[in-house]
């Protein structure tokens, strides 16, 4: 009779390094109109279709400008013109049960559509706006932050 070992041993395999190469990328820009920039530390990148996004990135749209972003868990985030948000925290690692999405919206218009993180970890999504926090348990949210 076989004894099933269920996840009692966690071993690090060399082949998982292929995932490590893309580990910094948490999403990408899928659609874009007008201009948008991605600010990453000292770097300022012009956003285009396919631009990869990292945790901590600040995304700013111009006027005109609008971007549609897809995260690795299929959360989609769309911004209208003259808008700005940063990906404060993001984790999507089902193998290790790590899920988190914290976005900080500083201005503009924002459409959020939940993905797998919200399904697999309903308490893991938070949107921060000036003066308030929003705990999101699915599904689709429209947020306008005025200045």
């Amino acid at each position, binding site marked *: 009779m076989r004894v099933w070992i269920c996840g009692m041993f966690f071993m690090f395999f060399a082949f998982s390094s292929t995932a490590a190469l893309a580990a910094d990328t948490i999403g990408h820009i899928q659609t874009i109109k007008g201009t948008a920039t991605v600010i990453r530390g000292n770097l300022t990148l012009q956003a285009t279709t396919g631009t990869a996004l990292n945790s901590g990135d600040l995304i700013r749209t111009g006027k005109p400008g609008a971007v*549609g972003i897809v995260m690795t868990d299929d959360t989609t985030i769309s911004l209208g013109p003259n808008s700005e948000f940063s990906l404060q925290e993001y984790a999507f690692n089902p193998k290790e049960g790590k899920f988190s999405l914290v976005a900080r919206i500083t201005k503009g218009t924002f459409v959020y*559509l939940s993905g797998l993180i919200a399904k697999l970890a309903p308490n893991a999504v938070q949107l921060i706006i000036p003066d308030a926090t929003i705990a999101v348990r699915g599904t689709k*949210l429209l947020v306008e*932050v005025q200045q």
Partner: protein
Amino acid sequence: MHSILIKLPALSLVLFLLAGCAPKHSIILVSDPDGHIGKAEVATPAGTQLLEKQGDMTQVSGPSKAPSPVTIADQNFIAVTFADAMAVEPLPPEKFILFFETGKTALAAQSQGTIATIVAVIKQRKAIKIAISGHTDSAGSAQLNDKLAQERAEMVKDLLIRNGINPDLMTVSSHGKGNPLVPTPDCVAEPRNRRVEVIVR
């Protein structure tokens, strides 16, 4: 003296009007494309509001006030305010599921035609990202399962490359048992969870 008496009420009226023009943030809950509605809880230091029905809206105007009582957002307000953001909303991705012969990296009979379909969709959508993930069920040895899931995902990537798809568009990962198709308790065999998913964006 007389002029100050006139100016004071005028000044307080102006201040009152200005206070009404403080920035207001709006949060509106709407259903997803499948018609499902979730929840959102908006909190300031002074209070919270729960959004739970289609169109529920609350507004925030400062940390010292609770979010406003929930009303139903005006459709026109939504259309005008969010038009540009909605115009760039990404299309939903297309997801494909592949099954394999037990314990092997060979595709199961029912999945053999799926590769051609995936290739056609990638080309038709001019897809820019393809996420390939290996999945296991919660039975058996985690490390053996994960290794097989990863191998299967890599094999699918190779098949797509051989069909002319650019490898730079693809990422391969293993989700282990953490993202099941059919949720089960731990240590339960479920063949439908032992799969590779290809998500085309």
